[in-house]
């Protein structure tokens, strides 16, 4: 019998029996005897009856049963999309979508204009510019499915990115506020 065995025996909450080697060990080992006494005192304390419910408890429950039933059942539950729209993150997401869409339109227009400019300025490059306009940028970017796909991608990016951005900024702001409070408290203690 080791002290570790004895501790395990106490952790398992087993009842002591006179024939056990455990009690023999407790008689010979002061530390384990103290552990046994502590376990016994703890069990006694834990078994003490808890206080009764405060006066008026039943009446309070019955009042709550009669009252909030109407509140809980009749109160309109705001749908998730409406709650989401109320979030600043949603506003941020919409702004991001707007910005990305504008940027995309500008880029596409700029690309087409650049190709046209190249076409006008340099006759030698016209063949290349034509090819580009027809095969690569111009042709590809002008296709409605590509534009739709890019816009959908931008929408997803904005929906995922904006809440993340919002939460990160919120966390940073609360950390900064906590830091200021900490500093103020530190200052007042020193002062």
């Amino acid at each position: 019998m080791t002290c570790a065995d004895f501790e395990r025996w106490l952790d398992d909450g087993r009842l002591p029996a006179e024939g056990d080697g455990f009690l023999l060990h407790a008689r010979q080992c002061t530390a384990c005897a103290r552990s046994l006494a502590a376990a016994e005192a703890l069990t006694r304390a834990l078994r003490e009856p808890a206080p009764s419910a405060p006066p008026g408890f039943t009446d309070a429950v019955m009042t709550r049963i009669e009252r909030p039933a109407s509140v809980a059942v009749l109160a309109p539950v705001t749908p998730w999309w409406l709650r989401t729209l109320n979030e600043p993150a949603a506003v941020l997401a919409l702004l991001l979508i707007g910005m990305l869409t504008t940027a995309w339109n500008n880029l596409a227009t700029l690309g087409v204009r650049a190709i046209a400019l190249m076409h006008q300025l340099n006759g030698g490059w016209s063949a290349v510019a034509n090819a580009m306009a027809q095969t690569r940028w111009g042709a590809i970017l002008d296709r409605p499915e590509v534009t739709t796909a890019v816009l959908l991608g931008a929408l997803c990016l904005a929906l995922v990115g904006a809440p993340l951005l919002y939460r990160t900024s919120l966390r940073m702001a609360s950390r900064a506020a906590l830091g200021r409070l900490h500093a103020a408290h530190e200052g007042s203690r020193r002062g």
Partner: protein
Amino acid sequence: MPRSNPAMGVPAATRDLEGAAERVLVDRARGGDAEAFRELVERHRDRVYGLALRMLRSPAEAEEVAQDAFVRAWRALPRFRGDAAFGTWLHAIVVRRSIDRATVLKNRRAREVRYEEAGDLPEPVAPDPGVEGGEMRRRLGRLLEQLSPVQRAAVALFYDEDRPVEEIARIMGMPESTVKTHLSRARAVLRRGWLGGDRS
């Protein structure tokens, strides 16, 4: 040794009669009879409040959670199939609510502590010593603070409620071996804390 489990020390015939009476009350309450439910509240309020108090260590929080558990039980009664005793089902609600509340309080306290490391640390909300009685209770309360909400629930159900591990597993919705592990770890933490207190 005081035992709060209604099954302890009660003759079998009386127990059966009480069980039958309770089933009748539950059936009536399930049909919307508020008076029958009031009777059920009267029967269970002390144990429910006691369990919540053991887990939350705050009379105000315990009262709120206990009341809330009864309100939830009332609303969920139409779905109560009677597979387990009403008391077991009710205790499962209390344990879940108390664990949720204890987690919220623990997180809130942790945030407060981060800030208050610079200054005075407030004592966690403790039961009124006049109500709970004595230094031993306060000491036990401080030690129970060190347990996780789940461990506290297991300890409260095992010692205070005197429920067998099998029933605790049903109430807490976990395997018996997990309940035994929680109890074993809780005993180790409490005993070490108790011994530490003795030394200091």
